[in-house]
């Protein structure tokens, strides 16, 4: 774990470890958070502290009075599940042993145990940040080194991989979370809308968007995998010509989806082309998908 990935960041003499409290409280701006995370990558001690303080923050959260949501919230959520794709399992180990009972050391770095199996042995009751194993969990939390994380990211290849993020496992996971959060925002927006089309190859493509949030995402079923030197690229096609909205790739099976970079305007035509790896400034091929957001 030590020695791999020396992400030391020069930050003008300031000790990034100082930021641990603010980080756990989500009180940093994105740049500061990124700086602190770079620091985490290089210090196990810092990772343990970060995990413990994050658990401490959760204790503050558990101390707030519960508030029952109105029934409409659940009804609306349940109705949206079928049309909301899930991130694929990072790995589906066949009948993994109850690793958590056997102890952390028996867990291979990149074997992401599935929660159901993991919890079969030791069921953690709800409110217990005080169970005394936090330090151990803290270690576990960051146990997967860069190699394991890369492997996990590769296993999740069904997913959109943003050109700018590819190869940076640490950020890649964040990117996926950002994408998931973006899609959740679109789907839960009061003005959420969708439109579908079929590609020449017969794959169903759906655009979901919210004008209010200026966000949109494209979902495509079973989009073929591309050679390693190519990417799919998204475009806003408007009066000013095509504007790139990011790249993604596909594993060939399941639903691939990508929240578009930039801001969507009502009526925009959204297109997808196949481009050289990393994307192009302007489309170099004809769109394989084009959907109007109206």
């Amino acid at each position, binding site marked *: 774990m030590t020695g791999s990935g020396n992400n030391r960041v020069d930050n003008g003499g300031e000790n990034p470890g100082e930021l641990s409290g*603010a980080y756990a409280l989500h*009180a940093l701006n994105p740049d500061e958070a990124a700086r602190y995370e770079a620091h985490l990558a290089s210090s196990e001690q810092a990772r343990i502290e970060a995990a413990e303080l994050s658990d401490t*923050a959760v204790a503050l959260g*558990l101390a707030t*009075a519960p*508030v029952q949501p109105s029934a409409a919230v659940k009804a609306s959520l349940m109705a949206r599940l079928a049309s909301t794709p899930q991130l694929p399992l990072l790995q589906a180990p066949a009948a993994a042993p109850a690793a958590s009972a056997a102890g952390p050391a028996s867990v291979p770095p990149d074997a992401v145990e599935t929660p159901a199996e993991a919890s079969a042995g030791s069921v953690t009751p709800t409110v217990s940040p*005080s169970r005394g194993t936090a330090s*151990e969990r803290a270690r576990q939390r960051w146990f997967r080194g860069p190699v394991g994380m890369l492997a996990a990211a590769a296993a999740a290849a069904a997913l959109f991989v943003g050109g700018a993020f590819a190869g940076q496992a640490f950020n890649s996971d964040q990117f996926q979370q950002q994408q998931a959060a973006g*899609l959740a925002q679109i789907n839960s927006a009061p003005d959420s809308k969708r439109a579908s089309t079929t590609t020449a190859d017969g794959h169903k493509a759906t655009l979901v968007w919210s004008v209010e949030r200026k966000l949109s995402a494209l979902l495509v079923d079973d989009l073929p995998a591309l050679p390693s030197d190519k990417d799919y690229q998204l475009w806003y096609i408007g009066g000013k010509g095509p504007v790139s909205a990011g790249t993604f790739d596909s594993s060939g099976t399941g639903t691939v989806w990508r929240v578009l970079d930039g801001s969507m305007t009502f009526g925009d035509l959204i297109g997808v082309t196949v481009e050289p790896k990393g994307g192009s400034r302007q489309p170099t091929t004809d769109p394989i998908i084009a959907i109007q957001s109206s």
Partner: protein
Amino acid sequence: MLGLMTADFDFDLESTAPASKEELLGRVARGDEAAFGDLYDQMAPRVLGLVKRLLVDHAQSEEVTQEIFLEIWQSASRYEAQRGGASTWILTMAHRRAVDRIRSSQAGRDRDTKIGIRDLAVEYDNVSETVETRIEHERVEKAMSRLTELQRQAISLAYYGGLSHSEVAERLHIPLGTVKTRLRDGMIRLRDELGVAS
């Protein structure tokens, strides 16, 4: 009669729900909608309670709660049981999203003016309070009372107010460097008081 009561008692203590939140989350990761519904029933009041503490406005808090649960649905496969409990994962995400909403919206800025330095004790008269939450509340309140006034204020403003550390500095009229130190010292003290570290 006695036997029956004992059985009920055991039932309550150990296996109230047929599945733990961790197990439910595992099923959610595989697309199990019923498990999602159960998980929602268990966690939604917690999530909304926390979100509303930050956002104040009820309608907006419900909207953010909905976003959070959709994100749980989408990214359940990213939860790793060995990293901590499901409640921890969910509440960390919930706090993050509430803070995101505050920072991204004008509503957040407006809300800002309503927030003074609020004590934990405030607003704790909710009817849905359970023994479990009351115990946890008292435990945290006691731990908070061990902090210095400045540590306590800084942490409350950041966590319950959703302020960034520079906003905390502005609010308390102290240098940013001091806020960083107070947030860290204070959180470490809390961690020790709450016994989070082993």
